[in-house]
């Protein structure tokens, strides 16, 4: 096994971290984007960031290839024996999320290089830190490091959110930061409660120990599970904790909003890891703790999201609400529990993230060609490239709403199939189908106002059309989504295998903890029982 193979699992975290530090050392263009010394700095920062992100995509592809064989790629930092050291563990789900992150990041970064990165300082360095946090959250095998990587990606996102500045961004940004800090406090409380009852924070170790905790102590763990659902539900925009998202995402600069499309999915990922596996169908006293609330809340999220989409007054806000809807659909799939439903939910998650990211970029392309009307959904002067942008919006809309043969349709079909026989099947079918229909209505309404209901009395938008770079970057996201439809059979096999792999706690524990795994696992705690007599 050569050097690269050995250290491959940690590379997705190290690469953006090193790149970000290099970008910081290179310095900022200092607002001097066009001509002058700063221009060269910006050009080099773009090249470095794009090269690094592309390399990250290759690493993610290599990890997916290895994980697809069913291998659980464990990496112990510093070779400390588990469960004492820092553990990085890439399974099928983790590799898939890495790949998704890289597939969204590269086109978005390319789009941002078209000019948005010059609207503020240190955009590229922050972008890389954000990627570091995202990738780290996907590969970590430890609950506390999940918190740390959450913080890394959040701190980067706080600054990226106000990138480009302006009144509205600072107002909404303050809300976003304060809410996230409060959520982080809850995260820590949840983690501490879990540690107090199990003596470990290693995810593999927890998956074995949490089911062993008996009745009186299990209540503490259930509280922790609910607290963590609040935290992850907040990040994922699960109702009733989703109201921050539309304002935040629609106020951010478009490339940042497109990148944030993946951030809600980090919340979904954490819910799968913690509530799906750790508090999952384990047979213990804490089994399926959140099951009674997750599915109803997720369905509610879908419904509220689509109602928000209907009432949106700008295209960006419409897309932001659709993000909420898609998260609701994915989480409803997760809430069904069971490998078939999860496999379908993962497939839908991949597609919806790509399409939502593309829609955020597309919203800006359209808005830029409409003169003073901007992204507002009111009749205005015609856009310069109605055919191109209209077709792109049509494609994205069809995929979001779930029309065949696009992947949104395949994902929803798989979800509906998986829900058959579930107690909530009727509600699930109703919500998914009606939401799909209303999504279509909302996007059709927006599209017809934007492209058909034009006013000829206004002066033209004075736009010669978007730069090919921006259009290509947006198209590549849409193309990735269409490719998912073409390659749906292998991807579906992969997502299903990822879901099945999650249910195999023993294999995960063996990969994470080595031969000491399972019941014989050592505890990081130097004591077994509470020595109450020590404290008076």
């Amino acid at each position: 096994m050569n050097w690269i193979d050995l250290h491959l699992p940690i590379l997705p975290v190290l690469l953006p971290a090193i790149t970000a530090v290099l970008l910081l050392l290179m310095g900022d263009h200092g607002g001097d984007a066009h001509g002058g010394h700063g221009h060269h700095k910006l050009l080099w920062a773009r090249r470095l960031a794009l090269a690094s992100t592309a390399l990250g995509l290759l690493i993610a592809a290599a990890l997916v290839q290895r994980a697809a064989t069913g291998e659980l790629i464990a990496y112990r930092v510093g070779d400390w024996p588990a469960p004492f050291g820092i553990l990085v563990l890439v399974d099928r789900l983790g590799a898939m999320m890495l790949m998704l992150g890289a597939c969204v990041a590269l086109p978005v970064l390319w789009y941002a290089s078209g000019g948005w990165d010059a609207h503020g300082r240190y955009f590229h360095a922050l972008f890389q830190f954000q990627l570091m946090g995202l990738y780290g959250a996907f590969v970590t095998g430890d609950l506390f490091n999940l918190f740390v990587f959450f913080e890394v990606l959040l701190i980067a996102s706080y600054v990226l959110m106000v990138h480009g500045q302006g009144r509205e961004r600072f107002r909404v940004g303050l809300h976003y930061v304060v809410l996230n800090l409060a959520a982080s406090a809850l995260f820590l409380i949840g983690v501490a409660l879990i540690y107090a009852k199990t003596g470990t924070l290693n995810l593999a170790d927890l998956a074995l120990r949490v089911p062993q905790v008996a009745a009186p102590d299990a209540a503490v763990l259930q509280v922790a599970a609910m607290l963590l659902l609040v935290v992850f539900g907040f990040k994922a925009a699960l109702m009733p904790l989703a109201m921050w998202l539309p304002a935040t995402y629609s106020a951010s600069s478009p490339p940042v909003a497109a990148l944030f499309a993946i951030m809600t999915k980090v919340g979904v990922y954490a819910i799968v890891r913690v509530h799906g596996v750790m508090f999952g169908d384990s047979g213990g006293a804490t089994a399926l703790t959140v099951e009674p609330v997750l599915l109803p809340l997720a369905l509610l999220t879908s419904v509220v999201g689509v109602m928000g989409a209907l009432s949106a007054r700008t295209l960006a806000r419409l897309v932001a609400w659709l993000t909420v809807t898609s998260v609701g659909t994915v989480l409803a799939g997760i809430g069904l529990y069971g490998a078939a439903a999860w496999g379908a939910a993962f497939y839908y998650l991949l597609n919806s993230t790509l399409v939502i990211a593309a829609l955020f970029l597309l919203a800006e392309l359209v808005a830029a060609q409409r003169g003073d009307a901007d992204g507002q959904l009111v009749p205005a002067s015609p856009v310069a490239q109605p055919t191109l942008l209209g077709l792109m919006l049509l494609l994205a809309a069809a995929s979001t709403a779930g029309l065949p043969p696009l992947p949104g349709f395949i994902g929803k079909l798989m979800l509906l199939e998986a829900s058959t026989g579930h107690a909530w099947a009727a509600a699930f079918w109703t919500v998914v189908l009606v939401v799909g229909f209303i999504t279509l209505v909302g996007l059709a309404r927006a599209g017809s106002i934007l492209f058909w209901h034009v006013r000829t009395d206004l002066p033209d938008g004075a736009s010669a059309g978007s730069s090919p770079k921006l259009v290509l970057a947006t198209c590549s996201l849409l193309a990735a989504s269409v490719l998912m439809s073409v390659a749906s059979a292998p991807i579906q096999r992969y997502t299903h295998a990822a879901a099945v792999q999650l249910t195999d706690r023993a294999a995960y524990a063996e990969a994470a903890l080595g031969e000491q795994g399972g019941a014989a696992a050592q505890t990081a705690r130097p004591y077994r029982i509470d020595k109450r007599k020590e404290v008076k």
Partner: protein
Amino acid sequence: MTISMEFLVASGIGWVTACGIYLLLRGRSFTVVLGLSMLGYAVNVFIFSMGRLWRAAPPILTDGSAVADPLPQALVLTAIVIGFATTGFVIELALRSRHENGTDHVDGHAEREGGAQ
């Protein structure tokens, strides 16, 4: 009558948390930042106490003597560092928001007449 250390620490954490939440729900960004800090302190002590409360027990493995759990202490250090950084950032952001919006109200517009606080 003696009061146990657990009772003191637990009620202390509860009180600080309550103050933190109260401040967090105020309308001005300064009090919100204070509330976040208070909440952060309470959470840090909470994590620390989740390793159980020990007296005269160093967090170092030795033969024979009682040993405190070192892991929550390490976790608290991480949480403190992150909390410190984010507090610094949110103060700067609040100042900037005050500058941009002309008010330190978190909703970005000055309070209406007769409003709270």
